[in-house]
């Protein structure tokens, strides 16, 4: 079963000690777990308005690891985001673009976000929307950040039907809302943490739109892999979530 992790990062986060803090260690862990392809974005790009510095460093370092595909963080408030995106795309290992709307103060309703969706569709790159990076209950009081509202993602996906979206790190409660979205909206399983997480998620959300995400290095990737192996998850469903649904989504891009 081929597993593609669409929700992973690499770098330094000031309020967490990651278990895997080098690319080599992260690559080794994915090798151990049998995850074939990992979509990696730069962790530090979340915390600065200009993602370019850390994105470039990641682009350079990750190119040594065939398993890693780089995801470019976009801050649509910057005037030259499109030029930077096209530059990165020319590298050939760019797999997707990622938005952190609340960290960058760039709501999904901004006209620039719609422009970005159009460019991403033209480049055949999915748009990943990170709903949260941690448990809001555990955030230090001076570093509070709300989650992205599922309804905003649903609205954007409906307005940009040519673009493939993946909502990253939704809770079960978010899935109910995301389920009302259009077929071009997928969601990952990284924050699904109930018994038989995949089965429970597939009761709330169309199972052909669920994809594998670990949210490493914040979360441990083995936990996500173990969700696929739950006894009550039929092998066919596990295979779809592992990579089949994603491949179908990518194939649907115009």
């Amino acid at each position, binding site marked *: 079963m081929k597993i593609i992790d669409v929700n992973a990062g690499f770098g330094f986060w000031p309020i*967490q*000690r*990651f*278990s*895997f803090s080098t690319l080599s*260690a992260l690559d080794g*862990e994915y090798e151990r777990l049998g995850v074939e392809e990992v979509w990696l974005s730069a962790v530090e790009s979340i915390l600065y308005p200009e993602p370019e510095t850390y994105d470039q460093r990641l682009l350079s370092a990750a190119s040594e690891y065939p398993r890693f595909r780089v995801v470019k963080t976009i801050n649509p408030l910057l005037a030259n985001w499109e030029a930077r995106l096209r530059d990165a795309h020319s590298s050939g290992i760019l797999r997707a673009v990622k938005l952190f709307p609340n960290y960058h103060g760039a709501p999904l309703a901004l006209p620039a976000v719609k422009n970005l969706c159009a460019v991403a569709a033209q480049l055949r790159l999915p748009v990943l929307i990170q709903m949260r990076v*941690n*448990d*809001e*209950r*555990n*955030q*230090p*009081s001076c570093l*509070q950040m*709300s989650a992205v509202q599922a309804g905003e993602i649903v609205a954007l996906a409906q307005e940009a039907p040519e673009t493939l979206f993946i909502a990253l790190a939704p809770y079960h409660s978010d899935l109910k809302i995301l389920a009302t979205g259009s077929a071009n909206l997928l969601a990952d399983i990284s*924050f699904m*943490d*109930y*018994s*038989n*997480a995949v089965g429970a998620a597939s009761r709330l959300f169309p199972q052909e739109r669920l994809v594998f995400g670990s*949210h*490493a*290095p*914040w*979360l*441990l*990737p*083995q*936990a*996500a*892999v*173990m*969700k696929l*192996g*739950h*006894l009550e998850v039929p092998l066919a469903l596990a295979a779809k979530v592992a990579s089949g649904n994603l491949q179908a989504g990518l194939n649907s891009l115009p």
Partner: protein
Amino acid sequence: MMIDIHTHPPKRNLFGESFDPEGAAQALLAEMNPYGISKAGLLGNNCYPFQTEASVREVNDFTLEVVRRHPERFFGFCFINPGNDPAFIREELDRCLSLPEFYAVKLEVCVNCRSSRLDLVMERAIAHRAVVLQHSWYVNTWEMSPAEMKHQANRSEPHDVADLARRFPEGRIIMAHMEGCGVRGILDIAELPNVWVDTSGSQPFSGTLEYAIEILGSERILFGSDLLGRGLAGQLGRIMGTPISSEDRQNILLHNAAKLFSLHLDH
């Protein structure tokens, strides 16, 4: 072989139908068996604060029935609301802790554990040689609704658990929810050898377990999942997916709980 010290027998199934004790046991066993969990501590099927005497007794009677049906797989925690009448608390603790099915006491968010209302609970637990588990979390309440805030009003944070442990050095206390307690919570109890921490809480975030081992030693860490509110893939994945030694992993998954609760493992 593994021991999960932090589980809850479910009240209802997926269709909203109430579980009887056997149904709850089977729901837990269906999760435990594929992962090789030999034994689980049952913390009660009601985690909400402000429980009445009647509802406290109901929770404990349910736990008792589940354990009696499968004593080789479960052991019970006596749920107590320290805000209830002291006479009732004494009676309920003595009733439960005199039974072979109960090994420990479970305290939720009913009363902050710095309160003198905890004194009676600790005295009876110590007299019965029972472990006390205190729900604990450095919870950020900024996005909570008024109802949730009311729920959390009397919660205990790790520094409160540390205070309780200092007041009762002969007591054995589990600070629940390592991930909710975080790095600061681990430091709060570092110098208190009568406090253990269970690994439950939130998602399987990386880094916290290694830090707990570094500061506390793996001997003071117990595997807890918070099943069925959480899943074993995530919660066991937290232990299996953290780069630690096999000795530390075995301590956390088995040896520490067996020793702390004097559990006989014949499954």
